[in-house]
């Protein structure tokens, strides 16, 4: 694993059946590369939460994953409504997900806290009416 690998994913809008495909794909790739299982798990969970957030709140978006021997960087970009108060959104239990999403088992307000918990670096840039960019990094070593 000497080279830098970049992968681009498009997350479709309103499609819960396909949400998770990008995370699964990254998970398999990392496994094949021999990345430690606990690192693979961290990346998979953080990325899946991001993917689900995009489907619930932002009508989809894009994900760019960069894998180097040192770390795995994930950039999630959407053109959704934006986050009004990032500090509030980061609080465990805070959620703006509608009831139909809660019926699916989401909307516990754990998405962003999980992303923070499972990454070594998390940066959120958001503008109301413009969209949100989430940058995450998981250290490999």
């Amino acid at each position: 694993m000497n080279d830098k690998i970049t992968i681009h994913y498009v997350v479709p809008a309103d499609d819960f059946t396909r949400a998770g495909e990008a995370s699964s794909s990254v998970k398999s790739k990392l496994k094949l590369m021999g990345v430690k299982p606990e690192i693979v798990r961290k990346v998979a969970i953080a990325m899946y939460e991001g993917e689900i957030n995009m489907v619930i709140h932002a009508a989809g978006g894009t994900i760019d994953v960069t894998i180097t021997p040192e770390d795995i960087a994930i950039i999630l970009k959407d053109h959704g409504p934006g986050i009004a108060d990032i500090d509030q959104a980061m609080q465990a239990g805070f959620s703006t997900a509608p009831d139909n999403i809660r019926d699916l088992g989401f909307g516990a307000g754990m998405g962003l806290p999980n992303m923070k918990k499972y990454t070594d670096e998390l940066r959120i840039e958001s503008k109301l009416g413009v969209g949100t960019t989430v940058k995450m990094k998981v250290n490999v070593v």
Partner: protein
Amino acid sequence: MKVSELVKMQEFKVRNEGTNMNREITVPYCCDLLSIAMAKMPAGAAWVTIMGNVNTLAVAALTDAVCIILAEGIHLDEHALEKAKEQGITVLETQLPIFEAALQIYQKIHE
């Protein structure tokens, strides 16, 4: 206890036999909120839940759960069944409540 032994237990009906029959079950784990399950599920868990949709399958796959057990007579929906087949995930169904189902597995592990 291995998955292959779990599928033989009378209380559980096999909905999909996965590709990991030889894996060892470490512990039963109960949770219906997917984000919490994703954050807390121990490795090698037999996941007992009432959420039988396609997202349950995604969470099981991402967290390396050994199998999913749907309690309270809940059935896996068709879409989710397709996904289970595609990903080789073992799914069982039972009429038992969540606690009872988990208890059966716990007792069998500690027999």
